[in-house]
């Protein structure tokens, strides 16, 4: 029996335009055999929840470099829950100061990958934690 391909939506939340890291992670996940939907820039919380639902993904991944991750995730959490996506794997990467990690965990982000995280660690984490 072949394993189902892991499906990931990788979104750039808010107005941040720094997408180098996000695109690098997209390539790493694709190289690892995952199916990745990259949203491009300027996604609202509503758009992220809608794409995740429509595409029936296993993983909801955000890449934030411009420091608005907390207000964004606070708005995203109820939308994902309302859409019945509370049991999916939520991960976030980017410029995420240590003092924000606890709050991100409370908001449901199981994987937190600050700048300097290794690609293979991200891939492995997703493989091990997808339901």
């Amino acid at each position, binding site marked *: 029996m072949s394993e189902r391909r892991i499906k990931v939506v990788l979104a750039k939340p*808010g*107005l941040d335009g720094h997408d180098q890291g996000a695109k690098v992670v997209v390539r790493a996940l694709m190289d690892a055999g995952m199916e990745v939907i990259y949203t*491009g*820039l300027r996604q609202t919380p509503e758009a992220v929840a809608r794409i995740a639902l429509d595409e029936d993904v296993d993983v909801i991944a955000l890449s934030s470099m411009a*420091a608005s991750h907390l207000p964004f995730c606070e708005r995203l959490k109820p939308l994902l829950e309302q859409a019945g996506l509370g049991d999916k794997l939520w991960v976030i990467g980017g410029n995420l*100061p240590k003092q924000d990690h606890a709050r991100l965990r409370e908001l449901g982000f199981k994987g937190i990958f*600050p*700048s300097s995280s290794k*690609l*293979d660690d991200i891939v492995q984490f997703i493989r091990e934690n997808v339901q």
Partner: protein
Amino acid sequence: MNDRLQSSVRPVVNESGIEIKPVYTARDVAESGGDGFIGMPGEYPFVRGIHPLMYRHRPYTMRQYTGFGNPRDTNERFKYLIANGQTGLNVAFDLPTQIGIDSDDPLAVGEVGRVGMAVDSLRDFEIAFEGIDLDKITVSLTINGAAPQLIAMYLALAEKRGYDVKKLRGTAQNDILKEFVGRGTWIYPVKPSVKLVGDTIEYCAQVAPKYSPLSVCGYHIRESGANPVQEMAYGFCIAKAYADEVLARGLPIDEFAGRLSFKFNVFGNLFDQVCKFRAARGLWAKIMKEQYGAKDPGSMWLRMIAGGGGGGLTYEQPEVNIVRGAYYALTAALAGCQTTALCCYDEAYTIPTEYAQRISLRTMQLLIEEMGLADTVDPLAGSYYVETLTNQMRQDMERIMAEVDAQGGIVKLVAAGEIQAKVSAQAYAMQRNVEAGRFRKVGVNCYQVDETEEREVAFHPYREEDTRMQIESLNRVRGERDGTRVKEALGRLRADAAAERNVMPAIMDAVKAYATVGEITNELVAVYGRYREPIKF
């Protein structure tokens, strides 16, 4: 050195793909094209510098990228930096301003004043530059998508404060094509975006001829994954696209090319970087002279800010970034750039604190005051290695530019997402090389310390009340201004945009009537539409 000895050493290939020998001689210079394209500083082809005496006449301008919160906060930081010897300003705007929306727009929630200063109307410029003499301190606006509005605000501010706009100096980044490649503060589709850049250049050439309405950026293309020769080659292709846009309106090259400027990146191998800038100076002069028929030497000058270099700094062992920054500043000084700005050691974590900004400023001052970097022009000239590599890099840049032209030109390639896909593939390959230890990065894949030993950096605080204050101020402006005047100006703007006239005169009127950044964007979006990002891997 004999061949057997040479072949026994480890191979070195620089980031631009050029093989580096252990020893260079006069023969290498001759074989790479000779020394015929070097010349004297201040003379064509300007490889050694655009001015005869360079820093001996005037040291590089120091211009740290600064801005946060509301205009009042930023004004205080400007004054702090000026009091500490900074000689120019480089203004950072928040993301709502950069993508042309107002602080009370639903999309701005959580982003107001976050990564730069919030600007909604001319009132904000009045506050931000209060008490700063615009004749003494030149101001660079790091703004692209919303550049027409902010250039208009700056000119309107200067006029209001009684400066002669004909003599006003300053710079706006205004390089929208690179925003599609990296950085991402685009608003309209590619074609009207390039048209707007043309409008600003044409308008400034007529109204504010000393003002630099464009700073073409290889910087962000490099940050997105380009190697050093691609950084310059793509930057020059983009600069040519704007020049072509303005020439098509009938303006002669020498009436605007002298006000074009550039922004490039400094990180990586020191010699690679110095030669990159020397090569590029010669190449730009050659392009302007031979391809565009420029006669005025000023049109051939590669005037540049060289910034070091976010992409080179590390999250690991942040204080080591202070040392990296010092080498980047040294590189920029050896390369003869006009202006320097350094990324601060804490930028992998946060927007820089006042303390971090001052360290960067002191780094640049120290090179001038203690290390002799401002004493002699182009001190590396004549080195067999440096002259060989300069020749090789110039030839590689020309080859890449020819490839872009053969593929249909830079505007087409950017609109199709081709350049983005190419540099992003390179960024991925580089990340893999770093993680595998093939490309060495101190503190990242060698000489690491235990995570518990990593020092925490101090954080620049984000104040939630800044958003509230900014929106209150915006509402006050909306309440106090002459609504009829605003409406008329915006109506004229839409009509001018629809008729493909230069929109700058109408934007000037709108800005002077305190129309907001977002209101002006909306009129242009109504005519031009919005950009849709091509997703290509």
